[in-house]
């Protein structure tokens, strides 16, 4: 447990300090949300309608950012070798990196999403719904991304590859996330069912992703 917390703390520190990805992910999130109205036009009614979906897609893209350094840096500087030799369970290490990455990049996006909702003409219930569904769903995005990061760790240009590998796997999270958000806002559509599916995605990813990532890291080393 001490070692797990140390890994989480180190990941958060590295993300927040110079050279880390936390600020970049947040700014990228802002940039994507800003870009969409330029594409679809400044119609506030339209923006209010598709706003939650814009925020979700932007959060998905931002979650993919910086994943290539999650294990890639440890592989390049030799830390991963030492972690393995130390006897630390590799799945626990992968989970620690994932939790740290989510705290540094996922959580700020969850907090920023309702504020950026102002730009998209969202009313307060919609802001709350987006924040709530992102809080439930973004761990799944990060954890699935962790698997992609482990698969491509040590590749010179893994970042682009991660996006291709991870995006199809995150389709269910996106679907349930946006469905739950619109379910919370309009009456005929259900809220609870997609929201529970969303939570299930996050929990299943939490249970499986660290082990898959650990297996990929170990297999890539041999």
């Amino acid at each position, binding site marked *: 447990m001490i070692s797990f917390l140390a890994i989480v703390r180190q990941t958060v520190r590295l993300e927040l300090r110079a050279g880390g990805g936390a600020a970049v992910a947040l700014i990228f999130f802002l940039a994507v949300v800003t870009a969409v109205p330029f594409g679809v036009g400044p119609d506030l009614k339209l923006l209010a309608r598709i706003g939650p979906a814009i925020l979700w897609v932007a959060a998905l893209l931002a979650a993919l950012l910086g994943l290539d350094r999650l294990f890639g840096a440890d592989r390049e500087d030799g830390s991963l070798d030492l972690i393995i030799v130390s006897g630390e369970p590799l799945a626990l290490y992968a989970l620690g990196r994932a939790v740290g990455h989510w705290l540094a990049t996922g959580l700020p996006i969850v907090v920023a999403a309702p504020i950026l909702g102002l730009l998209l003409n969202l009313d307060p219930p919609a802001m709350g719904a987006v924040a709530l569904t992102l809080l439930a769903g973004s761990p799944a995005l990060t954890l699935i991304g962790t*698997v992609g990061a482990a*698969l*491509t760790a040590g*590749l010179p*240009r*893994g970042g682009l*590859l991660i996006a*291709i*590998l991870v*995006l*199809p*796997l995150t*389709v*269910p999270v996106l*679907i*349930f996330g946006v*469905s739950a958000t619109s379910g919370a806002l309009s009456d005929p*559509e259900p809220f609870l069912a*997609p929201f529970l*599916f969303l939570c299930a*995605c996050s929990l299943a990813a939490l249970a*499986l992703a660290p082990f*898959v990532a650990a*297996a*990929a890291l170990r*297999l*890539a080393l*041999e």
Partner: protein
Amino acid sequence: MPSLTSLANPTRFLALSGAILPWAAAAAALLFAIGLVMALVTSPPDYQQGDSVRIMYVHVPSVTLAMGCYTAMAISALGTLVWRHPLADVSAKAAAPLGAAFTFLGLVTGAIWGKPMWGTWWVWDARLTSFLVLLIMYLGLMALWRAFDDPARAGRIAAVLILVGFINIPIIKFSVDWWNTLHQPASILRLGGPSIHSSMLWPLFVMMAAFAALFVWAWLAAMRAEIYRRRVRTAELVAAHPTALEPRTA
């Protein structure tokens, strides 16, 4: 054991597959000859869809093989990770472009069939959408294989992703179905179903068999090509390090 594991039993596979290849090719040619005549000439047009129903005889086998191919890759991935069989990752790597091709064929024939039926090339129908995601997964896997220098390492890493995808595909399918029913009340004409008449069923069966034979032929040929490619690589390594194949003691 001085012989390299990557050369251990592919030799027997090459002999066996070499014997099967011409038979698979002949079977595919024969079945296609029969199946195409049945599908295009002797089978009746649909009372609702007219002659455009005939695209089903290409579409349904493609789609079936697109999914069957991923299952074959998942079994190969287990072979790589659990039994460490040297041919398993060759088999998975050879199957991926075939799976992508059949998925693409399924999407294109679906779109061509959709144009007269729905009046548009593409609808975000649950099946079409799921297959689009499947195509992206095939392409991602192919990109992953290309990214590694060492084929053995690439095989192990790709095997992990294949299995992750195999668990994920039903979830994706389920979520897309959910998404589709939420946004588009089921108004789309569906192909197939149990009510299909036997005059259409038989051509479909023959075409399925023809596609399966084509798949077996292409798969074996691609595996042989991959084995030869690896032999060339090994030969290059040996040329660079002449003693590498001989056991030596310190």
